[in-house]
């Protein structure tokens, strides 16, 4: 039995689109699939829909489970469900797997209808802007003209922000959580180290490893280990693992000795088995490219955010050094410059960037209180 606060057993759906999508890069996807899940009920005037955008390694499975005894619920199951901060008794919540993903939506591992082979290296780079465009088409197909809210954490927050700029009339509320207006050089650097780990793996085969019946496990594992370190804080690593040794003594070798090594390798291995290397490359590039000021002569974020009409909730976490509170404050400042309705909270947490996925009481109370406003 799933607890009463779970949306229960959910089934992903697939939307097929045949209108060609011209991407920012200039490449064209003649047709594509988007896999999505929905929770709750769309009301008669279709005004209670909430779009949840996912982060780097996320997908459409936001809440609920796939089977009765499924131990792993959706990635934001603590946030979305009946009576939860995003209350599915009131809202119709949509999660989708972004284009280029590896959980059902058309991506590098999908079969290219033109060749009958996986896209692999031929799958074009997609950007946050392209994702938002594909999401508008999904909204259209569901008859949703305006979202009650578009929300997301990290890369998902960037998508929510872009929604508010690109389609201001389609977003009533925008929740940008643990995000940034654009990556810093340090962040791009981390992403490139992760990409180099994958690109230089001998099993990568220029992105066409599918044809060789292999996958660049070592590279993907390193990329994930690096990412994982940056998503945690020094404090949480210290309290969780410290310098604890598995055998209780130094072995003076390169095998796993410290608990943190064991943990990271385990996480890396797990990820390397389940995630597509090309998708990881593509998603990190989408992160790097995102910059709402890119096409503005002034280069000012406040100019880029001028079109926004939504009400905003911006949240950051104190120990998040990859998407630090200062970056959220840049978004807040730009919204204030435009006299947008915005609230901002800096949540005290030791969990680093990953805090946005954790069930912190104050954090959830804030989202719950804000959603009261969205519902009214």
């Amino acid at each position: 039995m799933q607890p009463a606060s779970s949306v229960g057993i959910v089934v992903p759906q697939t939307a097929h689109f045949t209108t060609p999508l011209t991407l920012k890069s200039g490449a064209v996807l003649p047709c594509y699939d988007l896999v999505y899940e929905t929770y709750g009920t769309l009301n008669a005037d279709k005004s209670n829909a909430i779009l949840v955008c996912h982060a780097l390694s996320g997908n459409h499975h936001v809440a609920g489970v796939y089977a009765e005894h499924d131990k792993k619920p959706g990635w934001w199951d603590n946030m979305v469900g009946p009576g939860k901060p995003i209350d599915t008794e009131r809202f119709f919540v949509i999660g989708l797997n972004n284009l280029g993903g590896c959980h059902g939506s058309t991506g590098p591992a999908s079969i290219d209808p033109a060749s009958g082979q996986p896209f692999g290296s031929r799958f074009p780079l997609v950007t946050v802007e392209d994702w938002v465009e594909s999401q508008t088409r999904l909204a259209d197909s569901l008859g949703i003209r305006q979202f009650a809210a578009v929300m997301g954490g990290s890369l998902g927050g960037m998508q929510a922000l872009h929604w508010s700029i690109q389609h201001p009339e389609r977003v009533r509320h925008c929740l940008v959580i643990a995000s940034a207006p654009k990556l810093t050089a340090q962040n791009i650097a981390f992403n490139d180290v992760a990409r180099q780990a994958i690109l230089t793996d001998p099993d990568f085969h220029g992105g066409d490893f599918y044809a060789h019946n292999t996958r660049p496990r070592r590279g993907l594992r390193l990329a994930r280990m690096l990412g994982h370190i940056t998503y945690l804080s020094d404090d949480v690593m210290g309290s969780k693992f410290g310098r604890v040794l598995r055998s209780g003594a130094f072995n003076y070798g390169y095998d796993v000795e410290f608990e943190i090594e064991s943990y990271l390798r385990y996480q890396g291995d797990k990820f390397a088995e389940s995630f597509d290397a090309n998708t990881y490359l593509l998603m990190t590039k989408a992160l790097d490219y995102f910059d709402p000021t890119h096409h503005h002569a002034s280069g000012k974020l406040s100019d880029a955010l001028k079109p926004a009409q939504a009400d905003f909730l911006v949240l950051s976490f104190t120990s998040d050094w990859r998407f630090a509170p200062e970056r959220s404050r840049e978004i807040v400042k730009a919204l204030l410059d435009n006299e947008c309705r915005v609230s901002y909270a800096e949540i005290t947490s030791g969990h680093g960037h990953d805090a946005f996925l954790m069930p912190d009481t104050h954090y959830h109370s804030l989202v719950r209180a804000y959603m009261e406003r969205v519902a009214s």
Partner: protein
Amino acid sequence: MMRHDFHTIANWVKPGSKVLDLGCGDGSLLKFLQDTRQARGYGVELTDANILAGVKNGINIIQNDLESGLSVFESGSFDHVILSQTLQAMRHTEAILREMLRVGREGIVTFPNFGYWKNRLQVLRGNMPVSDDIPYQWYDTPNVHLCTMHDFEALCIKLGFHIRERVVMTAGTPVRFLPNLAGSLAVYRFGRVQ
């Protein structure tokens, strides 16, 4: 219960003004100004509990430490900047007053008047004052810079501020005779010297 200074402040806020409420607490003043004066604006708060209360109250609330300044707000972007019963808890008193008139055209400040006769009496008796407007024991108070009306007015002169209006009250009733002695709560409206 609505605080005594709310109505005085609301009378000074022109309908439709853009206001910034510093140390806005749970946002009840800003909500009152939205409801009665159709004011638009933001509250600034530091504590988590007040941020949550402000979101529940339906106001725009920004978590920020006033002691670190108001750099998130552009110069001249507000009609009124309000510091209601917070001045006495500020460490950087001069800095926040200057910031108020940087981001706003007019400042509104309210504070408990340390010159109120009951406060003076308690000091004369040898104790730090505890009253409705200063409801803290000396060892457990957020207040670090208590002042009298005379003191505040002298600071305004030093900073080059022009006091446009002042209302003094005790238990909600306006006081006109010997305000620095008879008034427990002072409410000031000030701008730059023209």
